[in-house]
């Protein structure tokens, strides 16, 4: 009985997070087309990359007229945190073979957060699967809607869509910044490094350079 309760709580958590966060695919689709990507390009990113921060990072750098190699590296560096989520989830999910290949695509911020919040490993697996499925479907449908809708607008900047990406990053960071002075210092240092480097380096590179702020905080 208790097992069933845990599992239905995991299903509820998964759907809640999946649907709410999935809706922000609208913002991604809009931001991608605003940055100059085509509708198919925006959709392929959501289908196959399926990790929001990296997607926003690539389109943001493209929109700024950045060097594509630096833009891709910056987006990949952001995707690196999914590796660390995977390390933590491997023990919980215990997936092998073809199922592991499928589960890997779902290793992102939201699925990790829901899985780690569950009291048992069985409900963690349920939470992972439900969050992954509901977020994947919603994120891709809303990407298509956002990209297609925006492609009809003459000048998306007039609608303020260029601030949607930065606002999304701020909202993702906010809970962590609110809790820790160290992280606020790190964020300020990262932002300062990137801004100082911008006039001198190719677009995309200053963001990579900001990772140096981590070394300063870790050594301290």
């Amino acid at each position: 009985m208790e097992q069933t309760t845990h599992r239905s709580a995991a299903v509820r958590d998964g759907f809640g997070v999946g649907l709410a966060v999935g809706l922000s695919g609208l913002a991604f689709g809009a931001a991608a087309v605003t940055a100059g990507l085509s509708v198919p390009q925006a959709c392929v990113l959501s289908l196959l990359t399926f990790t929001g921060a990296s997607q926003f990072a690539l389109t943001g750098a493209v929109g700024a007229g950045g060097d594509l190699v630096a833009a891709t590296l910056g987006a990949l560096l952001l995707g690196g945190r999914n590796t660390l989520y995977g390390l933590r989830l491997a023990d919980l999910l215990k997936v092998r073979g073809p199922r592991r290949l499928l589960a890997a695509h779902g290793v992102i911020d939201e699925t990790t957060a829901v899985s780690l919040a569950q009291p048992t490993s069985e409900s963690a697996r349920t939470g992972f699967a439900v969050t992954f499925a509901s977020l994947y479907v919603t994120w891709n449908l809303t990407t298509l809607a956002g990209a297609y809708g925006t492609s009809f607008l003459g000048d998306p900047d007039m609608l303020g869509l260029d601030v949607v990406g930065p606002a999304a990053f701020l909202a993702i960071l906010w809970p962590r910044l609110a809790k820790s002075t160290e992280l606020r210092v790190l964020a300020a240092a990262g932002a300062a490094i990137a801004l100082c480097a911008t006039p001198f380096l190719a677009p995309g590179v200053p963001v990579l350079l900001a990772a140096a702020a981590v070394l300063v905080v870790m050594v301290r």
Partner: protein
Amino acid sequence: MTLWWAIAALCAGCYALKLAGLAAPQRVLEHPAVRRFAELVPVALLAALIAVQLFTEEGGLRFDPARMAGLGAAVVALLLRAPFLVVLAAAAVITALVRILTG
């Protein structure tokens, strides 16, 4: 490198990064420096992205009152504990209003 190649590289790379974590030996995570790096890197990168997208244009620093107002609206929405999409909408609407008002 065309945009499609960048997209293909990002898709393949992001998937490989995800799979590497699920398939890696567990003892990697036991290293405290790895855990700490994992926690800190996204914060520095996301903060840098916010700064670059708000305060620069075409390789130079630029102060845009409309984008500043949008950022301010996002901060107010976050302080009021607004849901994610409300934060994004507030930022976009305020930026658009300032652009309309200032022509």
